[in-house]
């Protein structure tokens, strides 16, 4: 929102790394920095880093504010805030009192907001709820309920025998075709025992 104004305003007077530029080494300063190119190494600023969509930073970054629309590989430490916009992609750890991840942003790493360990946990679990809910949904289909009543009767009457039978059957399935009707029921019992 305000960042766009700041971006264009900042770009006018302050430092800009153009799209074809590659900097390899240490970069430090006391003014806003707009990166449209590539910076590798280390970035230290007392003001704001604007990483635009075409920008790539493979560095450890230490700034006051960071607005990331490009790609960051490395750790970002900010004294105020880090914002990952919807175009932003980042792999690394973020340490800042304010961290903003906008919908569409891609991030892998740890987030540390300093005061609360809650923030770290939230960052870690971002991807997990989906998986957790997916696992419980898998088991329910197991119990095949329809022929339960009959099967139970069979199971109870032959409870001592069935384990052996089922083992034998599992080893040599083609044996019982002679008892076709009973065979079906036994299959059901086997499933339930597992």
């Amino acid at each position, binding site marked *: 929102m305000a960042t766009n104004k700041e971006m264009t305003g900042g770009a006018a007077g302050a430092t800009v790394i153009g799209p*074809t*530029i590659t900097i390899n080494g240490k970069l430090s300063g006391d003014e806003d920095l707009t990166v449209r190119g590539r910076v590798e190494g280390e970035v230290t600023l007392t003001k704001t880093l604007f990483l635009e969509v075409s920008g790539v930073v493979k560095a450890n970054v230490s700034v006051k504010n960071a607005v990331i629309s490009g790609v960051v590989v490395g750790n970002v430490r900010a004294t105020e805030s880090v914002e990952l916009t919807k175009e932003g992609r980042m792999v690394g750890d973020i340490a800042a009192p304010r961290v903003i991840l906008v919908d569409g942003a891609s991030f892998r790493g740890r987030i540390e907001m300093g005061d609360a360990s809650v923030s770290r946990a939230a960052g870690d679990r971002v991807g997990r709820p989906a998986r957790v809910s997916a696992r419980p949904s898998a088991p329910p289909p197991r119990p095949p309920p329809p022929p339960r009543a009959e099967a139970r009767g069979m199971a109870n009457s032959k409870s001592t025998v069935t384990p052996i039978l089922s083992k034998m059957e599992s080893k040599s399935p083609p044996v019982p075709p002679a008892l076709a009707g009973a065979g079906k029921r036994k299959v059901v019992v086997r499933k339930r025992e597992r």
Partner: protein
Amino acid sequence: MMEREAEHMANTVIGSSIVIDGEISGEEDLVVQGTVKGKISLKESLFVEGSGIVEADIQTQNVEVAGKVTGNINASQKVELKSDCRVVGDIRAPRILIADGASFKGNVDMDAKGR
């Protein structure tokens, strides 16, 4: 001069409070108002402005120095040392201009065959 400054705004600018220690390479104009140490290699022009300090070997197409440069300059077209600039190092380029008031120490090589 004004035109050039307007141009500068569109390209890469290293602001006056910025210090870069390392290597800069690229295919566009670079304006240095701050400090760069290490190496600069560009396919376009390098402008070292009055506040700019470059302690680096420079390999570009054109170089225009109004600030301080310590290091060897190798340009494929032109090197221009403006008044009030201070340059220490060797310059190698087909065209070299040194303005009145410029301070320079080093070798000059305009031999076009050498490149």
